[in-house]
Each structure stands twice: as structure tokens, then as C-alpha cells.
């Protein structure tokens, strides 16, 4: 079947899917297209869409937000841009996104840029389909869903093999502060490589968090020395033994940071660095950042019956640590923790014991716990207290009731902060907005 026919078929499937409210068709039209033509992505991009510029964004945390930042900036400068649906970041999601944005008659994609957030395991696969992406951003590498992704070092090895095949047509944008990510620079040859990282010591933490992964030099295995740690294992690092060191930064700050938290500083400067490479003016970048609206569930603010709710997606130890740190800086008092263990969350919830709850738990006056693994989270909180007091938190397995209860216990000018895992975030949003997003 030709791709034009596949696009027609795919669009028809999306139409039917939406008509009967079966979801928005973010993955399975692409799934079917790939079943019929396994080279669907490659063919579509090579045959009639050579002008479309592709941006791949990989990393454990921050893909969706960085993609949205890039999209906002590019659109502000008049570019036509599309992005795969957040979370639909496997090959089928990327194929679906291409389908959705193809012209049904000409099979052309009438856009300037395609942004794809790519799942950790999918990056090597997509680099076989999109052999010369214009940009690849690698944000970070943290332990996440060990049952699904495998271990950090395994992923890093797969990435470096896949990136090693890139050539001068690609600009590689790497996080210099993450030793594993920065070390990916050793492999691609002739690739234009740019680095982002932080240089603001006032943002540095006093001690390294327990969940940190890359304490050791990716090159020689010796312990790394840090002159500043910004979060987890990200910072200004150097290996005293083999002289492997943080690369020189091409960007380290911005006059505008639209989102809270040190982790979002990284996402922001990564997006700015890409925009600069595209040739977008500083003024356009800054004005786009000023109007930026967060992606769903990523510091998204909702108003429910006159009370403010803010959702901080917290999907792994680093992400939950950073959410806690950020809301603690905001003097948060009301907290709803929602822990699920479905496939998108990772089935193993052991990771909650790597989160530094001990540093923050006393600051909250209202804690409600819910989700598939309510009791695991409740135990974690119980064991994070200096002394046992039962009244510290409320357990409510029914998420709808848990949300209602935590809202009720939140006094009016205060904000209810909801920290959910991925599938829990989708559920929370569905309950709060009455709509499904994926």
C-alpha cells in the first residue's frame, strides 16, 4: 500500500476513533500504518517531505515541557510546528503524529518543524527511521521504571551507539551537567554539538540527593568531583583521575524562566539554545517565554470551585524530589500524593523509598494519600516522620473522594498541590476537568 493510501486510512481511523470517543487516535493509527509498511516513517519523510525539519527530544524528565517550550518559541517566530501527543512517544505515536499532520491529498506535511518527544528505549529505533534529524536534544538520564527501561547504563550505551551514526547534518544539544549525557559527545564525529548547563551557585544544593545515579566517571569509573550540584547528579563535575570534565557551556541562563524549579531552568535553556541555533532572535525568544503556558499536568494550575490546584507530575525519584523542593519553596501546606503502578508508571513502586520525604514532610499540614498503591505511599510517609503521629495524613483509596477531601481541607487562599505519577496525573485531570486527554 502506498503511503498516500496509508495516510487516508490512518486519517479515517482517527476520524472514527474520535467520532465514537475511543480516544484521540494518538497511537493506534500509526500502529496500523507501521504494521502495513514498517518503513512508513522513513518513506514518508524521505519521499516527499525533505524540507520538514525534525527535532527529537529525549531524556528521562522534561521532554514534554521542553517540546512545548520549543514549539512556543518557533511558532512565535512564524514557523508552522507540530508535536507528537505528550506520552505517545513510541514509534506508533510518532507515526500517528506524522499521519495526523499529513495533507490527505498530496501526502505532504505542510509544516516547517516536527517535534518528537522520544521514549528512552525508542531513541535508537527512531534514529533508524529518521537518520538525519536536524536537532537532537538530550535532557538527562535518571533511573526510571527499571522494570521497563532497564538500568541507566544500559540506556546510555544504547544511546551512544545510536548517536554515533549521526553526521554533520545534525545539531546535537546536550546537557553538560549530566555526566552520562555530556559523555555522549565522545561518540558522534563531525556533529555540531552544543551544550547547556547551569553556572549559578546560588541554585546549588548542599548535598547530593540519595536518588542520584551517576556519581562515577562514565569514562574511567572513578568517583566524580562536583564543585556544584544543582539536583540529583546534575552539576559542575570533573573527574580528577582521567580529566573527563564538564564541557564548556554554550548557554547557562536566561532573563526569563516561565516555570518554577531548577529542573525547568534546564528545560528552558535547552529550548533557547535550540532556538538560537535555528536563528531566532533573542527578543522573539524572550517574548514567547513570557507567554508560555505549561503542558498538562506539568505545574498546570486549575481553579476548582474557587480554590487553586496545581498539578506537578512526579514520576520517578528525581522528579518527585524536585516537585517537593519546588513546592516547599512556595511554602506549600496542602499535599495530595497519588501513586499508581500501571505500565506507564512502572509496576515497581520501590522507588518511593529513594525520595527524600524526610526533608519536607513536616512542612505540610494537610496530606492526603491515594492511588493504586495508596498503602505503599502511606507506609513511606509513616517511616519518614521523626515521631509517629497518625493524624499526619489521610488515606483514601478512591481518588475522586481523595481529591474532594483534600480540596475541602485546603483553606481558601492556599493552593492544593497534587503530586501524581503519570497515569494518576491523567486520572486526576480527568476528574478535575471532566475530560479525557489521552
Amino acid at each position, binding site marked *: 500500500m502506498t503511503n498516500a493510501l496509508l495516510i487516508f486510512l490512518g486519517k479515517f481511523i482517527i476520524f472514527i476513533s474520535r467520532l465514537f470517543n475511543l480516544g484521540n487516535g494518538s497511537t493506534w493509527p500509526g500502529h496500523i500504518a507501521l504494521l502495513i509498511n514498517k518503513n512508513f516513517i522513513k518513506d514518508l519523510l524521505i519521499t516527499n517531505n525533505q524540507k520538514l525539519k525534525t527535532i527529537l527530544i529525549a531524556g528521562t524528565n522534561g521532554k514534554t515541557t521542553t517540546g512545548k517550550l520549543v514549539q512556543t518559541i518557533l511558532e512565535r517566530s512564524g514557523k508552522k510546528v507540530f508535536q507528537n501527543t505528550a506520552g505517545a512517544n513510541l514509534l506508533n505515536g510518532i507515526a500517528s503524529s506524522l499521519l495526523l499532520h499529513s495533507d490527505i491529498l498530496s501526502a505532504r506535511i505542510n509544516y516547517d518543524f516536527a517535534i518528537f518527544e522520544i521514549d528512552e528505549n525508542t531513541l535508537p529505533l527512531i534514529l533508524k527511521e529518521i537518520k538525519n534529524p536536524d536537532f537532537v536534544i538530550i535532557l538527562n538520564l535518571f533511573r526510571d521504571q527499571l522494570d521497563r527501561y532497564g538500568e541507566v547504563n544500559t540506556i546510555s550505551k544504547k544511546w551512544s551507539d545510536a548517536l554515533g551514526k549521526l553526521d554533520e547534518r545534525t545539531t546535537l544539544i546536550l546537557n553538560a551537567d549530566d555526566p552520562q549525557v555530556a559523555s555522549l559527545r565522545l561518540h558522534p564525529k563531525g556533529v555540531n554539538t552544543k551544550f547547556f548547563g547551569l553556572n549559578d551557585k546560588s541554585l546549588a544544593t548542599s548535598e547530593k540527593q*540519595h536518588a542520584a545515579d551517576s556519581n562515577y566517571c562514565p569514562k574511567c569509573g572513578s568517583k566524580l568531583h562536583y564543585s556544584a550540584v544543582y539536583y540529583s547528579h546534575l552539576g559542575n563535575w570533573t573527574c580528577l583521575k582521567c580529566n573527563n570534565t564538564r564541557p564548556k557551556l554554550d548557554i547557562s541562563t536566561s532573563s526569563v524562566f516561565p516555570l518554577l524549579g531548577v529542573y525547568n531552568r534546564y528545560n528552558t535553556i535547552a529550548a533557547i539554545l535550540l532556538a538560537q541555533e535555528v536563528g531566532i532572535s533573542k527578543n522573539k525568544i524572550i517574548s514567547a517565554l513570557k507567554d508560555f503556558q505549561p503542558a498538562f499536568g506539568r505545574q498546570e494550575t486549575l481553579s476548582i470551585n474557587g480554590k487553586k490546584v496545581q498539578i506537578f507530575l512526579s514520576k520517578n525519584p528525581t522528579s518527585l524530589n524536585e516537585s517537593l523542593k519546588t513546592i516547599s519553596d512556595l511554602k506549600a501546606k496542602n499535599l495530595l500524593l497519588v501513586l499508581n503502578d500501571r505500565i506507564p508508571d512502572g*509496576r*515497581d513502586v520501590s522507588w518511593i523509598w529513594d525520595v527524600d520525604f524526610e526533608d519536607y514532610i513536616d512542612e505540610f499540614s494537610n496530606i492526603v494519600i491515594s492511588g493504586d498503591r495508596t498503602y505503599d505511599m502511606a507506609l513511606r510517609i509513616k517511616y519518614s516522620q521523626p515521631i509517629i503521629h497518625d493524624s499526619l495524613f489521610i488515606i483514601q483509596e478512591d481518588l475522586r473522594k481523595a481529591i474532594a477531601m483534600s480540596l475541602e481541607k485546603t483553606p481558601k487562599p492556599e493552593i492544593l498541590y497534587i503530586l501524581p505519577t503519570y497515569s494518576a496525573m491523567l486520572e486526576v485531570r480527568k476528574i478535575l476537568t471532566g475530560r479525557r486527554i489521552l
Partner: protein
Amino acid sequence: MIHNTKYSLTIGWLYPELMSTYGDRGNIIALQKRCEWRGINIEVKRLDIGFDQKILTTCDMLFMGGAQDQQQKIVAEDLQKKSEALKKMIDNGIPGLYICGAYQFLGKYYKEAGGKIIKGLDILDLYTEHPGTKFARLIGNIAVKVSNLRGVTHATYEVNVQTLIGFENHGGRTYLGKNIKPLGKVIKGFGNNGADKTEGAIYKNSFGSYLHGPILPKNPSFADSLIKLALEKKYGSPINLSPLDDSLETLARKSIAKRLSIEL
């Protein structure tokens, strides 16, 4: 019943920086809290790469968790230098808990997916083989019936038959030799190798297991039996721990048991 500060315990946490990948810290937190709540003084010594092996002998209990492959190799190098000291402690009956990668380390060898053999510390009569990358990792919630904890030490020491609840995630398959007993029998899940229904191992007062979760917070009686073993070993007399309110722990166990369709 004890509830005073007359007792104290020192736990040696082997390689907290490198061997603590799957929430293993939760085991240390559980031991620490359950001692503190009873007024037992507890000190945790972090024994990272290059630690002085003399510190080992000041510990009343040892704990070591799992790791990612690269980290495990760095640890293996350091640990081989200290294997004599560690073996002596284990042979002397110093209580210890060794999870996943640490458990594999104590055996004779680990055969990687590619066939390469990594020498173990040869303290426990067991070996581990990865059957190859084509074989699925053993992943999921697990329940293990434990009945032979009884009599591993002091005559007065007794633990009722109990079910351990946890989560396993390992590629290697462990096989026990004749000179070692399993920790328990798999009711749901895979255990040591997914074939012989055994899970973990007991040798003197040392316990090896594949259970993450982590194992101790959701299995408080196992945590308490380790504390009790360590106190009795240190003070040389039978000790009864004061009971704690474990109703939340029980609910957490029950919610997993329900999913696995088993009775606790």
C-alpha cells in the same frame, strides 16, 4: 519488653552510594525507625568504596542492596579485597540482609548473559546464571511462604510461619547448593530461578533475597526478627521486642495479597 536506651545497635550499610538502586534504602529506614520507636539506639555506618575493613567488626548487623551492572563491577573490585573479613563475620553469625545483586555476590559466581563468568565471594553455596538476553527478566509482585526462620539462632528464638510480600526484578537465576537452605517457598512470582519454587537463602544469620519493595517495611516481622537476632547476638541473652502498631503495614500487605489472590 524493652523500651529504654540501654540497648544499641550498629548497622553497617555496604555501599549505599552504589548498591542502592531499587529503593533499598527503605530497608535501612525500616530498621532504623523500628529501633528508634522502641528506644533502641541505632547507628548506621555508611561503608562506601575504599572503606576501612576494620569498621566491619564494629557492626552488629550488615545490609547490602542491589545495583546496576556498572556499579556492581566497581563494588566487586572493592569487595574482593574485603571478602575474608566479610566471610568471617557471616560465619560468626553476624546477622545480615543481602538483596538482589548483593545476594548474588555472596555466591560462587555470576554468569552474565553473554557467558562471561564473574567470580563471587564464595561465602554462600549458590551460583547465579543469566540465561541470555532472549530470556525475560523475572519481574512482578511476589509472595513467599517462610517457615524455617525458626531455630536459626538462639533456642528461644522463634518466628511463626509468615508470608513475605515484595517485588522482584532480576535477570539472573540463582541455584542453591546442598549446604544452604532457601529463605522460603514461592507462592506467587518467580523467586530464585522461576523453576524450583525456592526464594532467597539462609546461612547462619545471613539472609539473601530477591525481594525489593523494599522487603522490610512491608514485612515488619522480618525486620523485627533481624533486630532481635542482632541484639541477642550482641548481648548474649534472649530479648523480647516491645510490639509496635503495624496496622498500616498489615493493610499494605493485604492490598498486595488481594491482588495476588492469596490469603495472608
